[in-house]
């Protein structure tokens, strides 16, 4: 049976004991992953660019967050109603929307107004928005009670860590392009980057790979040998972790060229994207009625 049209796919999935999550990764769902990726990177970049006082980085951060907003609109079934997402009472998506609604105007204005008290306040405001953006995503996943793999307190930490690493990575790509070379900051960044990457790996292990719930274990199976495995191994592990870590480790031995730093940043970014992609792709819904004899093995 061909799985071309959506209803066909839905039917095939509903028939499975372990029903895969597709809404947030396939079809238009990919835009949500893009949106999450960009907002994380953007918010992280904002923090580090502020720290480094690196104005092009701030611009980049705004651009990334703005693009994230567009990607979200592309994802939504009814994008034109986006403004209704202000009821942030319990919804982390709404909180993210609020974060973005704070960040974007505040950050833009902060760059436009002359330095002073106002701009300082705007920067603080934008930074609060960025912080929300860093925090909210993982919580969106963690609040998804239907997908046990995501429904873990470690996931918000993991996604925040990823956002911070993404911010670092974008700066690693762009700092050299703007003429700011390997200096104390650069070395510090690399050291920080390595620490964060280690945290990411630990987070992955603790938050994801050690899942005990049946459906979550099935998700892990999807990740390591199923539908999400190519994205996970190539994107998240190889390109996103091994390559930059190897290069990063080399960095302790001697100075790195601009180009190499940029490669570290770029590969990290790719890894960041595919981490989100793979985790989304591996999402499996709670089985309504698990049959004990069914093997916990990935779907074909």
């Amino acid at each position, binding site marked *: *049976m061909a799985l071309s049209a959506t*209803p066909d796919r839905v*039917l*095939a999935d*509903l*028939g499975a004991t372990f029903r895969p999550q597709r809404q947030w990764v396939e079809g238009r769902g990919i835009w949500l992953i893009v949106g999450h990726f960009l907002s994380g990177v953007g918010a992280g970049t904002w923090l580090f660019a502020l720290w480094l006082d690196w104005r092009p980085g701030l611009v980049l951060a705004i651009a990334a967050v703005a693009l994230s907003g567009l990607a979200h609109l592309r994802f939504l079934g009814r994008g034109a109603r986006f403004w209704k997402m202000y009821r942030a009472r319990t919804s982390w998506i709404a909180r993210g929307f609020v974060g973005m609604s704070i960040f974007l105007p505040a950050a833009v204005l902060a760059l436009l107004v002359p330095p002073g008290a106002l701009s300082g306040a705007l920067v603080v405001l934008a930074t609060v928005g960025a912080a929300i953006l860093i925090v909210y995503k993982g919580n969106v996943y963690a609040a998804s009670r239907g997908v046990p793999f995501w429904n873990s307190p470690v996931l918000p930490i993991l996604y925040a860590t990823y956002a911070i690493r993404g911010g670092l990575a974008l700066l690693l790509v762009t700092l050299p392009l703007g003429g700011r070379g390997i200096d104390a900051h650069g070395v510090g960044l690399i050291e920080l980057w390595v620490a964060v990457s280690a945290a990411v790996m630990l987070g992955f292990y603790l938050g994801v790979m050690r899942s005990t719930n049946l459906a979550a274990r099935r998700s892990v199976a999807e990740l390591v040998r199923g539908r999400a495995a190519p994205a996970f191994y190539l994107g998240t592990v190889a390109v996103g972790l091994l390559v930059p870590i190897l290069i990063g480790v080399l960095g302790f031995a001697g100075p790195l060229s601009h180009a190499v730093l940029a490669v570290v940043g770029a590969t990290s970014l790719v890894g960041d994207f595919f981490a989100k992609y793979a985790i989304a792709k591996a999402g499996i819904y709670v089985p309504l009625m698990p049959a004990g*004899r069914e093997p916990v093995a990935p779907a*074909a």
Partner: protein
Amino acid sequence: MTTTDQWIPSTCGLCYGTCSIRGHRVDDVLVKIEGNPESAIGRGRLCGKGVSGIMTLYDPNRVNVPLRRTNPVKGKGVDPGWQEISWDEALDEITARLRKIHDDDPRKLFIQRTTTNTSIRAPMMMFAAAFGTPNSWAAGGGLHCGNGAHLIGGIYHASWSLVPDFQHCRFAIYFGASKGHGAGHVSCTNMQDAADARARGMRLVVVDPMANFAAAKANEWVPIRPGTDAAMALAMVNVILNDLGVWDAEYLAHKTNAPYLIGPDGCYVRDAETRKPLVWDAARGHAVRYDTPDAAALALEGEYEVAGVRARPAFVLLREHVRQFTPEWAEGISTVSAAMIRRLAREFAAEAMVGSTIVLDGKRLPYRPVAAIYFRGSQGHKNSVYNCFAIELLNEIVGAADVVGGALGFNPVCYGHPETGKPWYEPKPGPDGLMITGTWVAPHLPYPIADPKPPTTMSLGGLFPLGMFGPTMASSDQEELWTKFGLPYRPEMMLNYGANSLLSVGNSDTVAATLARIPFIVSFDITLTEFSEFADIVLPDTCYLESLDSRPNVPFIFNHPAGLGEWSWPIRQPVVPPAGQRRLATDVLVELVDRLGIREEFNAVANTHLKLDGSHRLEFGTRYGYEEICDRELKSHFGAARGLAWFKEHGVISWPKRVEEVYWRAFLGVRVPIYWEFLIGLNRNAKRIANAHGLDWDDVWYDPLPRWLPCPSHEVRDGAFDLWGFYYRDTLHTNSFTNENPWLDEASRLDPFSYTIALNAATGRTKGLRDGQEVTLESPHGRRVRGRVHLTETVHPECVGIGGCAGHWAKTLPIAQGKGVMFNDLLEVDWAHGSPVNLNLDTCVKLRIVP
């Protein structure tokens, strides 16, 4: 613009259960179908099919205009090259062809119809009778329906089928039946009643190769090898009669032929003068005629000297006969353990509470709260008759037939609406005191058995009076057999109503070859199907939601709820007007009658068949439209004030059932045979005719007492074929018809079984198969089907179960195309696979899995 909003009462047409419905019509669009709570048929509730009819009505693939074939070549997958023609053109051509056949030899007209739409049965039968052709069948009906189950249902229960008395039964054992668990006769009401019975605590044991449907709800599932039900049932009868010594002497003596004295030749010892069978009256100390009014001490045991011969009551012969069927013997055949057989027999005998009575409605009645029920599974075999006979004996020996708590036939007795006394029918004693079924509209009269005659019909029916349909209607060896018996004609034209015999009979190559030999085929259809590839003219039919019928659910012995409750007589009426050029097929038939000049015959048949009375009878010479015939029928039954107009408004008429109608056995002086003495004469005469025409004959099929006889699949010696394939009914589908309904298709795709090949998980693992893997099944005759296996614990390890009648290939059925598995493609349709008693086709097959 104003909106019209109506609820129109009518009748479902997606299976022969014919539940009463209400269609919600807004303006000209049908927006919903619900059950009609005013009717006992369904009681306002529908199955998944019933609520889905909208998608059948509005299928864009419906035929809207008459079509004529332009491509003379006929074959599977060959495009007929349809050309639109006008109704006049179509009817002119059909009339010309029919007239030529009518003038020449009307038997050359072959009439085929579907079992799905029951209300077409009467008009088609009436047309056949008026035209003068005996060659008519429901395609596949005789094979997948109940050639044997209906025969035994008729002989023992004066009905079409049987159910446990859901209101009072305490222990039911089902052999290959799903009554109350989905598809089939009275499906929706039975589901309610069976659920009530479960809630009440009725124990249900289901003997079946598969634990879907009934077995899924049973207290116990007893997996059995297909086609071996008789072995298990006979062993149970043996245990009950010979080990436990339990039987209902009162019932056997007065309601069966158990006391009839049997001579050394196996035949009744008859009264010299009246030729009536004799029984031994222990009080008198001598033999008397079975119908001697004051004979109360009829002997069931012993041996007597009567009319110069040693004679014994038939019951003695039965007891002795079943001694050979030990539980250990049965275990070897059926795979059901001897211990299990003994336990079930013990429980059945104990739960029967032989001798107990109950007072209902002030009347003291026998109370036997056990029932042995058989249907498609046990009957779909070459040994159909003995399988059902053997199981029925369980009911008979403990007297649990049509008494409170026992096995009930569907409504064999009806004393009619209180105001008109119609419909009125009841069984009556026939030759030798054995029961003749009483019927309304559709006679089901297996007894008395006709003398076998050299066959003059395509089905060879005359030689096999116990059969309904024969495989020779579409078998690979039909020409050989027809030649053998000197059939003096060949089918020259087929009039088909809605049957897709390519899918519903057996392997499609065989059926295709038989259809290709018929020079001209006209088919009433709502969509083009695989069958249409062989049709010359297709007429666009109305679907059930656009149709009119005054008796959509009669006869009551077929699909009206059994047990206490209400009688309901609903009508079917258009819920929306027919679209396009679709015409009600019955209107077209009436028009053909008129064009052919057989109006007198048709009206005479209608009067008789529909039991029209008084001023509502059709005058032989007058032309009536179908609507008028329906109107007269309703007025004839329910009074002049309750014609079609009344029924169109009210939809249904209901009245309460009486205890005498439901538990009629105690009230009527009819007997049923536990010993089929009539088979001896039938065998002798049929054998003589068969041998004279060069047909081999085996007496073993005509023993007056049942035995287990192997199916062809039990005799396959090649060990490579290590699985038994069987077919079962899916609740989501009716034969092949509903596969095109996309709502049902959607549900089927979600169902783990609907479209798959169910294979025991352990068996699958030893074969290295994965769940969902695509495999090919191959029969010893090289027939192959392909499908996905569903590995399951719910199937006997030796078996593969395939649901429904799917596997369409016609491009004109885009929803159905390529879905599911066509089990029938594995079946042989020939003499060797048919029963030599009732022509039932064998529907189990040995298989092997080829990757």
